[in-house]
């Protein structure tokens, strides 16, 4: 029987990345950690990190690219709270997001 892998929406990937950052607390998470936890390719990671920064959901903590970590903004925390509510609601009806 062919096993189908659950589709992970872009929004789910962004939420996974932000949760990886949230788990690291106030110090923030570096790209390698985010890449590992969110299970992404490097190209995708760079693209999505730029998008999250642009949307002001995360902010880089250092200008130097080698030491750069990311932490959540207030808007980012609010997004994660809303996403968790939507996740519970969708789960109740058996809808994967």
């Amino acid at each position, binding site marked *: 029987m062919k096993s189908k892998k659950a*589709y992970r929406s872009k929004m789910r990937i962004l939420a996974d990345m932000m949760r990886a950052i949230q788990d690291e607390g106030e110090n923030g998470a570096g790209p390698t950690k985010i890449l590992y936890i969110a299970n992404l390719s490097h190209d995708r990671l760079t693209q999505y990190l730029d998008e999250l920064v642009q949307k002001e959901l995360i902010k880089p903590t250092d200008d130097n690219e080698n030491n750069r970590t990311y932490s959540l903004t207030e808007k980012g925390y609010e997004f994660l709270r809303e996403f968790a*509510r*939507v996740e519970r*609601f*969708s*789960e*109740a*009806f*058996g809808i*994967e997001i």
Partner: protein
Amino acid sequence: MQDVLLSLIRLDLLLESIAGFIALAVSHYANKAFRLTGQKKLSDLATGFLVLSAAMFGHVIGTWYFFVLKGGDIGSLEGSTVFSVVTIAYGTMKIMAYILFALSTRPIGGGHSPALGLFMALPILIDPRLDVVAIIILVVVVLQSAMNYLAIRSHYALYVLVGFCLLLLSHMSAAYAERGYILSQVFQFLGFIALLVMLVRAGREV
């Protein structure tokens, strides 16, 4: 006798109005979730609850108009074309909503199942009565909700399962039970209360 009937109808209007508002709230939240995630099934779910809510409000307004404004003369309603249209529209809209529920809650990985489409058409071939059609479609919805609950065992999924089971009971009592009319309204109301509890609990922060 007529007073008793009128008081039951008033209770019916109250219960159905509350259920209509709950359906509207679920629709609003599903639509909000759709806008955030882009998941089409959430959009279908939102449309389903919106259609259901419109059906219930239409029924409330129709019943109120015929029974309260027209003085509750049941004899004159028997042959009333407008009353028949309202009743058929109510049943048809509910069935449309249930079809949307069946489509939006179907398990992932199934894709578009031709068997499900066939099963949806089956009730009309078996029995064209609207309540029977609704019952058969709701059986699909309840089975899908039960499968979801068994797979994830969450409180939220349980509330949805209970809600859909009560909606199924509501149609079963309307179709088969004596005094089915008020019983069906009570079951429907309780079903929506279960959905409201799910909505409130899911919206609460952990």
